[in-house]
């Protein structure tokens, strides 16, 4: 469930656009006003506001926001204002600059349903005039390229049928490969990137029955980066909400990881942040809002807390 709260009754897009315009005028920006509006509108409403603003003031709202805001706050608002599909296309593109943030690519590829991933790829075409696969491929090399391209290209069967015999045999293949620490074996990539999620869940269950937890096996002693990437993929496929709760836990650790906090909160506030919050609470005995408030400050903090709700 979403944590986003929207006022009732809701102001018209023109009213919101006007208030935003006022917030930009004069010296500095009235960030509180920006948050009060944008952090409490859903994707469709935000789109309406963008259109109204452009019509009224002949100016692109996003461009204006980019120039008015700064730092982590600006980055968060920029990611938030788009609709979920466009947002993921943008985040994928951002993740591919310089040091590829493979974690983001894996999340987008593995958490989404096949249809959702397809929508992201279509939006990516329209926005960047490249395919997501081609950009992932040309910005990565070796094993990471193989894994990431396979994960973003796949169009998994999304039925519930599973084949137990296959699950057993593929669990064994994974086990044999992990035991020998040949994590980059083609079979691992084949199984992880082509099987349906239902089939993979069955496979990991077989793995657990026979050999113990696969994610623990991948974490092992001195795991290499590729094994960690596989772990992320597996967790995103089988238990995404738990995974994101963990990302948030790391995000509020000692030195806050603002990129991770922004990413998870912005991407899930209008989706399933409520369940993620609950898992976070279960695991840490602290409310997400409190934890985030401790390690962030200023408008950035206010914006995140508004999205987190409560």
């Amino acid at each position, binding site marked *: 469930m979403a944590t986003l709260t929207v006022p009732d009754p809701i102001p018209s897009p023109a009213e919101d656009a006007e208030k935003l315009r006022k917030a930009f005028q004069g010296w500095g920006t009235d960030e509180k006003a920006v948050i009060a509006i944008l952090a409490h509108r859903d994707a469709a409403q935000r789109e309406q506001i963008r259109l109204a603003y452009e019509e009224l003031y002949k100016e692109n709202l996003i461009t204006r926001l980019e120039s008015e805001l700064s730092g982590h706050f600006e980055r968060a608002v920029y990611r938030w204002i788009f609709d979920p599909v466009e947002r993921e296309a943008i985040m994928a593109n951002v993740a591919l600059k310089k040091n590829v943030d493979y974690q983001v690519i894996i999340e987008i590829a593995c958490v989404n349903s096949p249809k959702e991933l*397809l929508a992201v*790829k279509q939006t990516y*075409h329209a926005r960047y*005039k*490249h*395919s*997501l*696969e*081609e950009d992932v*491929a*040309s910005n990565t*090399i*070796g094993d990471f*390229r193989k894994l990431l*391209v*396979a994960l973003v*290209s*796949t*169009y*998994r*069967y*999304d*039925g519930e*049928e599973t084949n137990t015999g296959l699950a057993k045999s593929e669990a064994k293949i994974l086990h044999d490969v992990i035991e020998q620490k040949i994590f980059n074996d*083609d079979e691992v990539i*084949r199984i992880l990137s*082509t*099987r*349906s999620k239902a089939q993979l869940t069955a496979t990991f269950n077989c793995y657990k029955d026979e050999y113990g937890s696969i994610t623990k096996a991948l974490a092992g002693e001195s795991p290499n980066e590729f094994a960690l990437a596989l772990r992320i993929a597996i967790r995103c496929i089988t238990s995404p909400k738990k995974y994101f709760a963990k990302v948030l836990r790391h995000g509020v650790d000692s030195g806050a990881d603002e990129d991770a906090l922004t990413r998870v909160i912005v991407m899930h506030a209008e989706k399933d942040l409520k369940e993620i919050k609950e898992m976070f609470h279960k695991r840490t005995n602290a409310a997400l809002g409190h934890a985030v408030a401790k390690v962030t400050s200023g408008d950035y903090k206010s914006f995140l807390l508004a999205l987190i709700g409560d």
Partner: protein
Amino acid sequence: MALPLVTEECEAVIRAFSGLGGLGVDEKALVSALGKWRRQPEKRAQLRKSFVGFFTADGSFERCEDDYIRYLKNEFARFKNIMVLWAMHPWERDARWVHHVLHKPLPLDIIVEIACTRSSEELLGARKAYHALFHHSLEEDVAYHVRENYSNLLVRLVSAYRYEGNRINKEMATSEAEALYSAIKTPGVKKLVENEEVIRILTTRSKPHLRVTFKHYKEKYGKSIEEHLGDELCLRETVQCLDSPPKYFSKVINKALKDGADKNTKDALTRVIVSRADVDMKEIKEAYHQQYGAELEDVISKNTLGSYRDALLSLAGQ
């Protein structure tokens, strides 16, 4: 024993049975023979004695060869097959062809053909149809059933969702032409078909981009990338299909109509005509004329029979 004199009448019936080459059977001629030879079993006996290779003497009668029965089954079925395929949704057609290739020993270039000559949306559609029909994803089955060293290339090709716009980056096309050349000319530890950069370029770049890349390749190195690829399994078909489907299809059709073509090669004729009739039939005919100096419709007329021929000509004609 003296060779039986094959009468003109007999020869006509043998030809109608596809016994003298040609694809399909001449249903009208066969039905007319039924009428003409009514109550004349000796005529049929003569037919069997003249139909060398398909009937053999076995004691006191002429027995049908099993291979002949199989052969006839195929030839009679050509019209049925083309009609059923014609009625099917293109996505289902493609999904069924891929499934067929994976579960029988059929040439893998059919997979290359489908992956590379369909538009991004058509290929995606085939993948959707595959889900519905077979409860697996297309790439899952290709990855599982193809174990040779070109497995990676094929999985990447069927998984491609290429950008379809015209925007291309000339510098990138140039540098990728050079990367391809370098991969081809520098023998590495792995086979060319497993080369990372070759796979990346051929399976992720947009088609307009690749065509510019291939053009630049030819300009810079004097030969087309196809020629340099020589006999490289799957890679050559990949490049041909990406560069110019009409040229590729015209070659496939030509092979199908040659004497001594095997079953799979002949079956390609139906596949190509049915799948391209509404796409680029005109360009295929032009390519055929350019490559072989003949009109495709004439060659089809000469080498096919009956309702099958009529169906082909209806699809390939104006």
